[in-house]
């Protein structure tokens, strides 16, 4: 990285303050658990701080870079959970791998919370990126490593599923 690029790199504290809400929202939707999301967000920022010298503003925005780190942290968490569940299966101590403390947003209706919890992590992820973080389809597709049409399809299906479940909950 050139000296000019290093000079252009913003202050970490400032970036952390600005991006905390977005990264937290993304992680919350991804893992679907408030306390786990808080832990993972903190872990992601710690990791970001350790690797701050590697951040190149010319290649990606701070938000994208932080979300990528958060995604990697969340995937590590999923892997660990997966291993834990397998161990429990092996020793017949199976506990439901479920969202213990759903928390997608203060003020959300219980139906919407429940419907969100019923979606897969991948579906919630695309909703978080496109709806909450308001990234464009191109950026999200690149971020997830999928095509733009696949990204749009995933979002549309996820929102449709969400709406249907909310509607059915309301009717029930």
């Amino acid at each position, binding site marked *: 990285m050139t000296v000019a690029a290093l000079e252009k790199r913003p202050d970490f*504290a400032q970036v952390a303050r600005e991006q905390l809400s977005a990264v937290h929202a993304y992680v919350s939707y991804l893992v679907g658990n*408030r306390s786990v*999301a808080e832990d993972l967000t*903190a872990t992601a920022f710690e990791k970001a701080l*350790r690797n701050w010298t590697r951040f190149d503003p010319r290649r990606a925005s701070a938000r994208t870079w932080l979300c990528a780190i958060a995604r990697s942290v969340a995937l590590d968490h999923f892997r660990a959970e997966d291993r834990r569940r397998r161990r429990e299966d092996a020793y017949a101590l199976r506990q439901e791998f479920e969202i213990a403390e759903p928390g997608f947003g203060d003020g959300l209706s219980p139906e919407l919370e429940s419907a969100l919890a019923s979606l897969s992590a*991948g579906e919630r992820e695309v909703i978080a990126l496109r709806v909450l973080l308001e990234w464009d389809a191109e950026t999200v597709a690149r971020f997830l490593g999928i095509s733009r049409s696949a990204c749009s399809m995933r979002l549309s299906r996820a929102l449709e599923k969400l709406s249907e479940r909310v509607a059915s909950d309301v009717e029930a």
Partner: protein
Amino acid sequence: MSRPENENPRDRSEETARELRKHPPRPSEALISRIERLAERGPAKRSHSTQLQFSRRKLVLALAAALAISVAGAIVAGELRQPSSTVVAGHALPRTLSVQSGIGTDVSQFKESVPLASGTDLSDATTAVRKAAAASGSANPGATSTTSNSAAQITSGKRLAELRAVLTLKVENSDELSRKTAQAMKIARSLSGYVVSAQVDSPSRGIANSYLVLKVPAARSQEALIRISELGKILSQQVSLEDVKATVTAQGKTIAALKREIASLEQTLSQQTLTSQARSQLQVKLARDRAKLSSLQTQRTKDILRGRLATITLTLTTGDLPKLPIEPSRIQKAIDRAWDGLSSEISWAAMGLIVASPFLLLAALLALALRSRRRREERRLLEK
């Protein structure tokens, strides 16, 4: 959240999205303060070397540097490989003296480093070489304008030496070629020599050539060379002189010894006291010595003849010799050597690449497989 019936699914989705946007997850105070504390610590100071990151510009610079080092290495290697110049010292003269001149050829060339036996007229020879060099090497196809007097004059004085001359002369046309060929044969005969072989190749179109191998007495070889070289313009000439006196002397001594041995054997065989076995053994030895003597005498005669008769190989042509490359300059030589070095570096690199390619391919396939596996795993994890 109440919803009207028969609502468009798209509208419902949009409304859900609006709802989600309205109530995003908020980080707790605990998390905010945790991140604040983290941010206050600031990023760890790293040394400059650890801050070095991969970038395209650096890759290009590294490649350029590698190329520059390769070229510099090739130049240095080329300079080191430069052959040392041949030194011809007056006291280490060659046994075989060879003179070449003509279009693009070296002015003079000395072969072998066996000292020449005393008696050979070397001063004359080297002077002749220089004369020939000055005449024919002064300009490139300068040879075409060389006068007949520029024929190399090498003599062995009174010492027995074999002289071989190879001359290429240019004549104007086919008629001239036939006439000059006949004249060359006449010259050889007039000097008590003879024609070993003659071949005339005169097509109706194109270049005509004639090839002659002439033998002339060594004592008259200079006269022959001068007269023959007057037949056309010298394109190239090569004259070599090989001392045969030492060989002939050594052969003479061996012959004398063999003769003595044979006489002694004959005397022994004439005695009556010999047993039949001893007699037969001596007879075998005598027969062997006689055969050896006969062979040596034949060889000596041939060697004497070689020394007495000079061989002139003459080519008469209506065309020009193909242009040989001009002696390259020092810079050109350096560039050539550097290029050779670079070529060898490239070939080594290519060889290394060929050897490493299966491993690189395997590594690439492994990387692809790992990446694909990671993607699949991520997808599986995110589908839960």
